[in-house]
């Protein structure tokens, strides 16, 4: 393989990987905009993965063994299950932080522990027959993309999850910055007490934002789990790494979904680069460290400049209780 072919396949793979990051980051941005620092995102992505696998298993169990599987349903049902499971994870988080007024860091870390345990245990116990089907069905959205050469190979060979992820990110950006709902959401995240006295239902906004964010992150987990080696799951390399990196992307992109699209592409490049570049350990681990260092630099620079547009939501991580005002 010459350099051109390698770089084409590299970019194509990077876009595919960035999908997982993008779903996680978009969900987390919606969470954080409402003032919820949801450290349970890795756990929620695991829940989504469990939902995806479970949905596919249920669909396969409901069709007779000889009948062909519907290529549309076998993707749709896992996604629906992933959305429900991810939303359930978000619901647990918001129930504990909004209704029970618990510390968000503590709840998030516990949710991650629980999510990893529950999902891995059930996924590893799942029967495997015909499970590769969904992974095969969601390989590429457009047929005959090879005719367009390198352009088709990079941009049109992707699964429709990728396009869905970008669409969700763009829609989120528009809703957050242009609509009244988005304005209210930002108000809740910046100063919950002021938003409450302006007549915005803080609890409802936080509940709904966390549930929707969880659902989106759940799709990301399901995509990774079903696509990984085309449906033959192994739990050796966990989704939690993706979840933590999604948290980094949120900071790196300064809470803007549009920047998150490119940031997740960059992070995906860095995370698959070690398998394309042969070098000594220092180079490999240097690439591994780059995303975190870059995130740290963004965090430091934005706080040193103290620009208002690039700051975290002011009441991020603060639970709101009306009697505390």
């Amino acid at each position: 393989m010459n350099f051109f072919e390698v770089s084409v396949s590299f970019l194509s793979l990077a876009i595919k990987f960035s999908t997982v990051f993008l779903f996680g980051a978009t969900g987390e941005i919606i969470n954080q905009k409402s003032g919820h620092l949801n450290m349970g995102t890795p756990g929620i992505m695991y829940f989504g993965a469990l939902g995806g696998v479970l949905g596919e298993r249920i669909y396969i169990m409901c069709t007779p063994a000889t009948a062909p599987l519907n290529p549309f349903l076998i993707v749709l049902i896992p996604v629906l299950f992933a959305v429900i499971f991810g939303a359930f994870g978000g619901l647990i988080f918001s129930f504990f932080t909004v209704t029970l007024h618990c510390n968000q860091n503590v709840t998030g870390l516990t949710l991650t522990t629980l999510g990893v345990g529950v999902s891995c245990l059930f996924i590893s116990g799942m029967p495997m027959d015909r499970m590769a089907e969904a992974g095969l069905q969601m390989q590429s959205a457009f047929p005959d993309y090879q005719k367009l050469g390198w352009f088709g190979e990079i941009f049109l060979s992707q699964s429709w999850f990728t396009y869905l992820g970008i669409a969700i990110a763009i829609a989120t950006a528009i809703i957050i910055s242009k609509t009244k709902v988005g304005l209210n959401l930002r108000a809740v995240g910046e100063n919950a007490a002021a938003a409450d006295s302006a007549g915005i239902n803080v609890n409802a906004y936080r509940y709904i934002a966390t549930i929707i964010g969880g659902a989106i992150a759940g799709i990301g987990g399901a995509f990774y789990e079903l696509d990984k080696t085309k449906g033959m799951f192994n739990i050796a390399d966990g989704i939690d790494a993706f979840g933590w990196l999604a948290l980094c992307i949120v900071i790196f992109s300064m809470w803007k979904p549009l920047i998150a699209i490119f940031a997740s592409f960059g992070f995906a490049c860095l995370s698959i680069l070690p398998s394309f570049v042969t070098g000594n350990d220092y180079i490999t681990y240097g690439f591994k460290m780059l995303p975190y260092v870059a995130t740290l630099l963004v965090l430091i620079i934005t706080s040193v400049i103290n620009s208002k547009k690039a700051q975290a939501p002011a009441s991020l991580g603060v639970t709101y209780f009306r009697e505390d005002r």
Partner: protein
Amino acid sequence: MEKVAVKEKRNFRFPLYVTKKIGLPAWKYWLIRIVGILGAFLLAGIVCTVLKPGTFGLFFSELFRGCFDFTDITTIIELLVLTSLLLLIALALTPAFKMKFWNIGAEGQILISCLVSAGIAKFAPSDLPNIVILIMACGGAMVAGIVWSVIPAIFKAFFNTNETLFSLMMNYIATVLGGLAVSVWIKSGSQSFGLLKQGIFSEIMGSTGTLTIVFAVLVFILVFFYIKKSIHGYEVTVVGESVNTARYVGINVKKVIIRTMIFTGAIMGLIGFLIVCAINQTFNDSIVGGKGFTGVLIAWLGHFEPGEIALFSFLAAVMEQGTTTAASAISMSSFLFSSICTGIFFFVIIACEFFSSYQIKAHHNKEFMNYYGEQKALRREKYSVQDQEVKAQYRKDFAAFFTTVKNAKKEKIKAESNAFKRFMKKVGYALSYPFMWIKARRTFNKQNNRRFSFPRLMKNIGYGITYPVFWIASHIRFAKQNKKAMKGENV
């Protein structure tokens, strides 16, 4: 007119609200916590039974055997070592948390100290005495821990950078550095770091980590006095309560933040040193294994009080070690099962926090209660399959029958001559009361030829399950009725 409109809008409100509990007596507070802890263990047992049917008893016996096996001293020592490790981590975090400095970077701070002390122990010249290597490793680890924890503190103090996200990032950088060090240090051919040959503690009472317990006790005393009795501790509390107040009374907030994180970092270094040189005597990039995050949870649940932290670290250690043993007994992945149980444990205790500091109240209203009473009577009629009189008669007959059953049992207990056995039988009687009731009900139905009726059962279940929905629905209906009445008055 406008006033009326506002009133109408406010007609329905959610019938429950949450308010703060004030002046909860200590015994009630601890009762809630104990119930929560027992509930968490019970729930873990139920999850175990769901995953592998029929293992409820086995789960608890294995849990107990894994932690308190008095025939084998090593299990108890291991439990205490795990406890003291978690205790040390939580104690190290406590001063910073009291300052509302949310440092979740314990994982990275420990890992980097592990890395440094492993490096020193591995590459120190072998002609040095062991104790010198140990002191060098400990000092190096402390420096590394201080560096790793003071960086977020400096940025927090001078630029107000978000310390939670900053310390989270530092965790991953430490993990990558750990991985790099392992792959550079190991000789080509071997896959792992291997056991350390020098700079290690020797085995005491069947475990190399026994000295950790001593260190934990010392650090416990140190942190206790640092927080409660020293000026530093007082300043930390003031900064945590209000930064502006601290500035006003002349406390240098930046200095306090950095000084406290140096204190944290030094203890983190000590923990890293103990993990490498005493407990594991080897190194890899997942050597901390999530204990840093568990420490964060423990410190928060212990309200930053050293005594409570010690209790919770012991319970968390029991949960982790016990469930690991139980998982291997019922052939399940021990890491996954113990992480599920730990997750449940912390969730239940977090929920208990809520019940000890808040209370749920319902909006009570005399008019509504009257209306609700009527509605309830109507609903009961709708759900009752039988004639009310027949039902009342059945209840009466059954009560008489049940009394005779109870009396027979009581006579039996009285007939027992041995006092201890009599007492035990009384306890058994109390415990088996619900089962006795069910059994009596079944025999009574059989005797009276009262057949099982599926519709009756479904209606009974439905009545119970839909009760909350009915309650809220009647609230809404009541509000609507009021609205109509109010409109009528205005017109």
